[in-house]
């Protein structure tokens, strides 16, 4: 990330300075504003979902959910702690229900619990790849945007989208399985 980001920013800023020097600082400030706006949106969304998840947790529903999903989670993430399993189950559930961004807080908590060392483990890799390949199947935002732009049939892209998402998802699980093989059952868990 460091190499990509630094190279691109240096090139772009140099080009912008050559063509339109005034725009550089404006662009930086504008980006900062965008990031602040977006962060506040995230605070609102996370507050709702972390609140709801906390209620679910205190009536032991998350534990039950983790139990239901334990076979699937075991297959995907390998051997992880009980607490991490709960967050992984929450992440899976919020992705399936399809509420944008609700899956992020649980993913962060799960990954914090799974990753102690400097080298990415299977669990963290799988969680990242699943979320980065779009575990979220229904493209509500895109369908909404198509409707706003006057599409005759906003949801005609639904089936191809689901097929493509599933395709990249399965490919992702397959490749991650190869690149991060499951460790042999460790006894210290």
């Amino acid at each position, binding site marked *: 990330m460091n190499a990509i980001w630094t190279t*691109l920013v240096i*090139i*772009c800023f140099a*080009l*912008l300075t050559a063509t339109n020097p005034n725009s550089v600082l404006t*662009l*930086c400030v504008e*980006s*900062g504003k965008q*990031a602040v706006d977006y*962060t506040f949106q995230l*605070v609102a969304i*996370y507050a*709702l979902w*972390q*609140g*709801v*998840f*906390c*209620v679910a*947790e*205190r*009536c032991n529903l998350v534990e039950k959910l983790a139990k239901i999903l334990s076979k699937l989670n075991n297959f995907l993430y390998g051997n992880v702690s009980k607490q991490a399993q709960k967050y992984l189950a929450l992440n899976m559930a919020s992705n399936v*229900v399809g509420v944008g961004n609700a899956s*992020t807080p649980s993913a*962060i908590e799960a*990954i*914090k619990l799974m*990753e102690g*060392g400097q*080298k*990415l483990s299977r669990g*963290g890799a799988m*969680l*990242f*790849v699943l979320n*980065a*390949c*779009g575990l979220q199947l229904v*493209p509500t*935002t*895109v*369908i909404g*945007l198509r409707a706003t*732009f*006057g*599409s*005759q*049939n*906003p949801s005609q*892209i639904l089936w*191809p*989208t*689901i097929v*493509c998402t599933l*395709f*990249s998802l399965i*490919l992702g699980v397959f*490749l991650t399985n190869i*690149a991060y093989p499951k460790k042999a059952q460790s006894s210290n868990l």
Partner: protein
Amino acid sequence: MSYLVPILIVALFAFASFKRVNVYNSFVDGAKQSIPTAVAIFPYLFATFLMVNALRASGVSALIVDFVSPPFQLVGIPKQVLELLLIRPFSGSGSLAILSDVYNTYGTDSYVGNCASVIMGSSETVFYISAVYFSQTRVKRLGWAIPIALFCNLAGGILACILCRFL
């Protein structure tokens, strides 16, 4: 579909009251954690937005698109959606802006419009997710995780352009 989430929330709150859980306190306790989570993500958001905006404003993204378009056209991806494919891994709002441009220029129901829609819907912001997920761990060596995610999204994009020919 629009009933699902509200019903789930109402059912959860009712169930929690039935189990004598203090819903109000639990909700507030959970919501409290949202600020540290979002604040930890903020610098990564800022850096990403900065790069995406610089890419678009300086014209570098257009140059990259011109440069890489021949091989992509070979696998059936039209040039007009390449910028979307390029920005999509970095920024959700940046790629939504590009999607709107595509809709304005080519219409939502054209082949290009459909391709762009499916690509947008089936792919994810890979670099953004990696920044957010790994921001609070000490992980330094990611191995193949990011290349795998990028490759899968690209493969999904190629499939999208193929499927849209049949719409």
